[in-house]
């Protein structure tokens, strides 16, 4: 990604999915540090602590325990200090409802996790390519 010093936040409860993202990023030589949290609530706690670095991108799963992705978006996108961070939903859900709701809550993208690992790498490659070209507010 463009600004290498900034971290990427991954909000994901599944261990293998987390490994998949890490592995794909490594394979694609994305050097941004990955900040992993397991659900929406942990993500909010991390983001609201001024001691923590602010991520340049959030990869968000939807179906998680304690606080799911949609609920996280409902809070984060109404929070002045957080709404500017781009969020890309990375999920299994193909439900129209989830897509519509996500975009109404201002997500920057909606990607489906493929079952197949090589395809997963392609998905991450696309995300990386986009955020390498796209300008982000400082």
């Amino acid at each position, binding site marked *: 990604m463009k600004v290498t010093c900034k971290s990427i936040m991954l909000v994901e409860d599944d261990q293998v999915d987390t490994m998949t993202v890490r592995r794909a990023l490594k394979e694609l030589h994305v050097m941004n540090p990955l900040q992993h949290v397991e659900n929406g609530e942990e993500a909010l706690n991390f983001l609201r602590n001024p001691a923590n670095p602010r991520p340049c991108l959030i990869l968000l799963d939807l*179906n998680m325990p304690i606080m799911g992705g949609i609920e996280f978006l409902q809070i984060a996108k109404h929070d002045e200090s957080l709404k500017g961070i781009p969020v890309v939903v990375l999920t299994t*859900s193909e439900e129209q409802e989830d897509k519509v709701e996500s975009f109404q809550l201002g997500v920057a993208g909606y990607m489906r996790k*493929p*079952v*197949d690992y090589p395809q997963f790498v392609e998905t991450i490659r696309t995300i990386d390519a986009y955020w390498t070209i796209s300008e982000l507010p400082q």
Partner: protein
Amino acid sequence: MKVLEGKDPLWLLGSAADAMFIAGPDGRILAANRAAETLFGYAREALLNTPIESLIPPRFRAAHRAQRTDYAAHPASRVMGSGFDLHGMRKDGTEFAADVSLSPLEDGLVLATVHDITRRKRAEEALSEQSARLRAIVDTAVDAIITIDERGTIDSFNPAAEHLFGYAPSEVLGKNVSLLMPSPYHEEHDGYLQRYLATGEKRIIGIGREVVAQRKDGTAFPIELAVSEMRVGGRRLFTGLVHDITQRKQAQARQEELIRELEGANDELKNFAYIVSHDLKAPLRGIGSLADWLVADQAEKLDDEGREYLRLITQRVRRMDGLIDGILQYSRVGRVKETRVEVDLNQLLRDAIDSLAPPEHIAITVAGALPTIRTEKTRIQQVFQNLLSNAIKYMDKPHGEIRIDCVGAGEGWEFSVSDNGPGIEARHFKRIFQLFQTLAPRDRVESTGVGLALVKKIVELYGGKIWLESKLGEGSTFFFTLPKRGQSTLTTRRGSQ
């Protein structure tokens, strides 16, 4: 008056229209006029000196003798119609209703005038029969019938009303009808009535509506009330027809409950499909990724057999992924509603064929122009795509031919997709439309067995039919119909998407 001079009093008798007799103290007829002869059918000679009783039916004679004796003791004028129902008997034995007036003359003589009242009697009987009939209708009616006057006072209360409300007529007649209503109607009814009488504005009269009534024991129950207004002898009355709709209401409530349950079950099913999509896929993806990394990272530690096993794992993961997608697709039909648009099937088929990218040796032709129909685009696309991809996937001839045709058969369109592929045995015709049913082993042809089930579900939801004709070794033709009108069967109760 000159003309009357010298006339015998009997002349007067003779010219009267009514039958007249003069009877002696012993009851014997002393004189009778012409009208009397005519009425009773006797010649005057036969009447004279016979007892007056011979002119009444035998069964009344004894009583008449007693009455006559009584009258002789206290003679007084008795006018017609004073309440005695008498009968006369003619010479031929026939009887008639008669009204008789009596006037005492001198020396114990009595003048009796007899008037035939048969016609009046008949009219009276007809009237009372009619009113008895009307009363019987009211008394035997299944619905309660209650009349009130313009002050709301109960004027009549039929047996069905007694039964329904639990009051005896004596308990309610003369009372205000609001007695039969629960609060707040109980308090408000006088106001309703006054408003109607003042404004003539009808809220219930002649309209009928569902309201709540109250029994004697205080329980309330739903009724259908129809009120009509009438004027009887200058009085303004209102008739209320009360039909107990407790059972209908209960049935309605039960129906609503069933619908709620169904909606609940439907929502559950919807959630189920969602959970299947997410919760089953997550671990599946894990298995796929791990198998892939084993191949990538540990390849040198595995022999050919190990690598083959991992390849099979990956393949199964993809297959299961396909099955889950199939379930989702299948469950989405009819659940997720799409906007209906005009779909040009010619364009749709060109796109579908392009996206399927059939191999060189398979030719797909569209016979003639296809119609433009108003429908949900994705669904009709799924129908053609699945039928075509099956035809392509199973093609076993060096020169494959697939042909799409359409005839506008009356009320609907009949589409067909035919191929010169392997054909299907008739005994499998039913099975192939069932979910997850395939005829070829999955390792030979990757198939989830969802396609035709999906096609059938879509076609049937649109009110069409699907069937096939096939000859083993020569090919198959799949037919389906779509109604030209009333394609609106594909609706969900609350389509939100």
